[in-house]
């Protein structure tokens, strides 16, 4: 039996979905699923029951996303900070996660679950990986750039989220995808996560559509700026190189241009080799982890 609940949308939901799909749709939605415990209190349930409802709601939401042709979803299940909760609650969450996510492997969809995650740690880790690359002689410190850092994040295989939704009325990011959501549409909704409805999701998508053009413009502006910065950085490196290796005479424009193109091409090759090595390192880490005997 499928964990992502099968079943169609009702007629009204189908029509609304089709209307929304006539406009721009987010390709990657991130959720901060907040409000399980408040829900439990409200309904006089145990906390664990609240978390259970939360997981069920996740399954339902994934179904809606499938119907809305949203190919990728990222959720914030558990932060490093959440380890501060009682041992009982933490253990309960871990067990629930293990059960539910095992079943998820039977489905085929892109669901990224951020577990024991904080964004600052992820960014720091990306910096550490680049420093490792420098130590290994794969890249130079001057190769460090915004796009390289993005490639070193855990989320490098995914596009940045177009839409970030946080439920339960809190209006902060709580150390979630801080780098990746710098130009995402942020929607804060007051509904508690276990009470999330199809219409709440539609409302969030509508917000995304209303903001689409202006956010797109801002993103493009940022990318232009990034490209310019990379070009200037390359130029500076080339200028330095020519100064050290030149014959004292100032290089002409053509020679500078050739040197720049050559330098850029070399840098890009270096970076590709480094990223390959990084991928290999990560894959080895996981296969080593899986081959270790699992302690009960």
């Amino acid at each position, binding site marked *: 039996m499928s964990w992502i609940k099968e079943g169609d949308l009702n007629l009204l939901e189908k029509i609304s979905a089709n*209307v*929304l*799909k*006539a*406009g721009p749709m987010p390709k990657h939605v991130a959720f901060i699923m907040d409000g399980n415990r408040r829900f439990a209190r409200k309904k006089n349930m145990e906390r664990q029951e609240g978390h259970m409802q939360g997981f069920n709601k996740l399954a339902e939401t994934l179904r809606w996303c499938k119907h809305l042709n949203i190919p990728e979803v990222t959720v914030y299940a558990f*932060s*490093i*900070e*959440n*380890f*501060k*909760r009682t041992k009982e609650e933490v253990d309960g969450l871990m067990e629930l996660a293990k059960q539910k996510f095992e079943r998820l492997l039977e489905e085929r969809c892109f669901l990224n679950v951020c577990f024991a995650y*904080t*964004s*600052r*740690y992820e*960014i*720091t880790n*990306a*910096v*550490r*990986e*680049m*420093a*490792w690359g*420098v*130590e290994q002689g794969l890249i*130079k*410190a*001057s190769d*460090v750039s*915004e796009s390289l*850092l993005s490639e070193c994040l855990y989320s490098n295989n995914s596009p940045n989220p177009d839409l970030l939704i946080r439920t339960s009325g*809190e*209006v*902060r*990011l*709580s*150390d979630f995808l*801080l*780098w990746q*959501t*710098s*130009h995402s*549409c*942020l*929607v*804060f909704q007051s509904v508690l996560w276990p009470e999330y409805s199809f219409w709440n999701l539609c409302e969030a998508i*509508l*917000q995304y*559509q*209303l*903001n689409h053009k*202006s*956010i797109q413009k*801002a993103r493009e*502006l*940022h990318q232009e*700026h990034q490209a310019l*910065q990379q070009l200037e950085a390359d130029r500076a490196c080339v200028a330095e190189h020519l100064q050290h290796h030149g014959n004292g005479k100032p290089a002409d424009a053509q020679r500078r241009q050739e040197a720049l193109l050559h330098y850029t091409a070399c840098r890009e090759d270096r970076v590709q080799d480094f990223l390959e090595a990084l991928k290999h390192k990560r894959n080895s880490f996981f296969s080593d982890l899986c081959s270790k005997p699992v302690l009960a």
Partner: protein
Amino acid sequence: MAMLYGLLWRLLLLLVHVNTALVSWLRVRLRSWKGRLWERAVALNHNPDATANPVTGNRDDGRRARWLSDGKALEKLPVHVGLLVAEEEPSYSDVANLVVWCMAVGISYVSVYDNHGIFRKNNSRLLEEILRQQNLLGVDGSKYSIEFLSNGSDKHNVVSCRPTVKVLSPEDGKQSIVQAAQQICRSVENKERSSKDISVSMLDVLLRESKNIPDPDLVLKFGPVNSTLGFLPWHIRLTEFISLPSHRDVSYDNMLDALQRYASCQQRLGQ
């Protein structure tokens, strides 16, 4: 069929825009109506025996006292407020007002940001405007003198008792993180440290060194765009975001409302 849905979608967006326009029109009407009622109430209650000193000084004293008491009345006041102007063609006088009000209410650090870097480019114009508003609003220069931090300055100034204004642009966001990363990688290249030494606190210290101010507790976002637009990604880990429709013609009461909403929110920090 697709065409029909396309039309319906456009209709939906139109309805939303009409609704938004109607709501903001109503809000403006309500505010001016409330304003007129208030004036009438004040006129009615005005005690003819009390000396209504027409000299500006007294009125300003009253305003300043009110602002200060408003700040003290809040359950919690942010230490650092970010003003995120997500609108085209910013109004310097309105932003200057907001800065002066924030500081009059007792907020120690105010950052001003727009994603085009307009404020950064016109740094001096903004700061002139702030000083002008300070004088106009009768805010006492010596007590509230503002410290203007522009990029890379005042590294020696560790503790500032005076309110501080900082003008930010997208360069202070991801680009700063990249620069810190480059610095770290250079020291690794020079064998001054190992990649294993790199920690969150190391990066945090580097990112704080050039800014020298605490993380923003609150960001007031002005304009219809629902995004941080690149505002200090590292520093907004626990920042509360409160949206206001526009910075143009924003009133002190609008700002105070937002601060009251901030005061009532609760941070559980993972627990």
